[in-house]
């Protein structure tokens, strides 16, 4: 049992009559990158706060790094690192001063603190920025400082709550490279994000809708289960108005705007896209190109939020 970094059993949190988290159970493997997704207000943050020992569960329990969150929240907090959504550094201090302060808060001092500061700064590739003023650093670099902070006391599990919100694409990639490095070194990473392309980087994903965990699997398994059929990526001009023509085309399961184009999910009969192209051209679109693509996790997310009772309730066809 205890080889899992996190074990959650029937965890619930009620605020009055409102069930923010409703009977959630899952586990996270040691060294895994576990993605926790959900709509705003679905209960993600409440779950994380309970797992970090900051909020007591109403019923149920979870074991985090061997400590019960209900009985030993202090033990949990000592064993984990937590990087909150909001920027939690002192911007008027240097990178080094911030680390020294938070290290002190975790009881590190002297030579040991110095060694750990060196180690975490090396890990996040910021050794050269140690005397820089935090206020002068761009957002992406600051997030790395915040991560270094959360890692100072060498936790076995880190919780990252939307670590890349508002960070530019290049910095997001750099940040995720760090996350993979951490996981390769054996740290368990529990991460939330609203960027579905980032969710693809996770080994497994849990998806929350209205307080319940409605899906949990690897990204590719989730796609097969929740968005069966063939996904066509459609590009062209005048797609917006023409897309309505697809609603009446038999064999089309779903039409979603995706980037500047459309994602059209179809049954096996329409898999080559010819019928879709014809229908769009007939409805006034031009320069239409169709390629078969992989469904995205955004498609999964939208399907799960629309029909939380399960993938069987989505449009018929192709479900295994």
């Amino acid at each position, binding site marked *: 049992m205890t080889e899992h970094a996190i074990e959650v059993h029937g965890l619930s949190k009620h605020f009055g009559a409102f069930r923010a988290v409703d009977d959630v159970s899952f586990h996270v493997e040691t060294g895994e990158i576990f993605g926790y997704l959900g709509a*705003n207000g679905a209960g993600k943050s409440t779950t994380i706060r309970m797992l970090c020992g900051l909020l007591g569960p109403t019923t149920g329990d979870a074991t985090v790094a061997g400590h019960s969150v209900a009985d030993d929240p202090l033990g949990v907090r000592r064993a984990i690192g937590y990087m909150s959504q909001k920027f939690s550094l002192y911007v008027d201090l240097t990178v080094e001063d911030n680390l020294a302060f938070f290290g002190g808060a975790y009881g590190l001092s002297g030579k040991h603190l110095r060694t750990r500061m060196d180690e975490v700064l090396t890990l996040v590739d910021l050794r050269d920025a140690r005397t*820089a003023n935090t206020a002068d650093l761009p957002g992406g670099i600051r997030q790395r400082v915040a991560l270094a902070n959360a890692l100072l006391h060498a936790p076995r599990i880190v919780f990252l709550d939307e670590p890349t919100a508002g960070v530019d*694409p*290049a910095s997001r990639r*750099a940040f995720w490279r760090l996350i993979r490095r951490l996981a390769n070194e054996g740290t368990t990473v529990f991460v939330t994000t609203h960027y579905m392309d980032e969710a693809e980087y996770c080994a497994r994903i849990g998806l929350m809708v209205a307080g319940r965990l409605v899906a949990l699997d690897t990204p590719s398994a989730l796609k097969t289960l929740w968005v069966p059929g063939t996904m066509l990526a459609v590009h062209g001009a005048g797609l917006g108005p023409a897309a309505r023509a697809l609603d009446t085309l038999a064999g089309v399961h779903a039409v979603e705007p995706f980037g500047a184009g459309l994602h059209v999910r179809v049954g096996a009969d329409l898999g080559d896209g010819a019928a879709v192209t014809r229908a769009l051209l007939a409805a006034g679109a031009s320069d239409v190109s169709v390629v078969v693509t992989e469904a995205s996790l955004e498609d999964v997310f939208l399907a799960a939020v629309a029909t939380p009772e399960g993938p069987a309730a989505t449009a018929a066809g192709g479900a295994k």
Partner: protein
Amino acid sequence: MSTVLETSGLFRRFGKTEALRGVDVSVRRGELVGLVGPDGAGKTTLVRVLAGLLAPDAGTVRVLGRDPSKDPTVREAMGVMPQRYSLYGDLSIAENLQFFGRLFGLRKKDFDERTKRLLDITRLAPFTERRADALSGGMYKKLALACALLHQPEVLLLDEPTNGVDPVSRRELWELLHELVAQGMGVLLATPSMDEAARCHRVILLDQGRVLADGPPELLVRELDHPVLEVLGGDRNVVDAALLAHPDVRAASPAGTRLRVVLAPGSTERVRVALAALGARMTPVVADFEDVFLARTAHHEAVAEAGAEARAS
């Protein structure tokens, strides 16, 4: 007059940092313009100058033909949604809306109609008595947008409106935006999401205070002269490390089970040879706007760290 917002030669510095170095941008009526750029490129400074919250050191701003830093009446026709948390946390959703409605001098009938519609669209209607502090990030952003739209502005400035907003709400916000733009609103939207930038009529790529590119996203993708490929095979970690170290690789990122790379123009063969030694091969893929961004701003990370180094020494 079809241009609702126009700047020419905007300069703005903060101490030694030059945030804007000669920026010319424009937004037409019924146009949705995306503003993208690396962190610290000057996006927020530009939005603030356009909103009249900062005065430029040089250059001019015209919003509906007026200078927003000198003529406050233009605010009656302008909606602004700042990036920072800028509503009143101890006030409820209804009270925040009421306050801004009054500041814009809305008649009760108009106010009631518009609030109802905005609350429906944003699905905030059941929570009107909840304090803004108690809202989740996405709900807060939706409330901020509702506050910025109450007076039906002709020009809308949005600074990263969907940070922390989940995919479902984000989609709803975009539907609302498209509807408003179709009705003739001119919108400038700063965003870190290339996915969103690709949905704009036009995208302005800002880097280090300068406009690096300005045009429809499809056109910018078509004009991209950097090869974009997917890498298959080989040991993932070894290949990743090799790509990162290769001077011709502008960006490498996992895409599903594969790695997607953006290369320097004309360098495909060199990289192919280097990867072959590691047992990996490459196939070309269709570029998207994110590839454009990564290719054009690839120097950024290095520059930021060089800056940090300079300060460190």
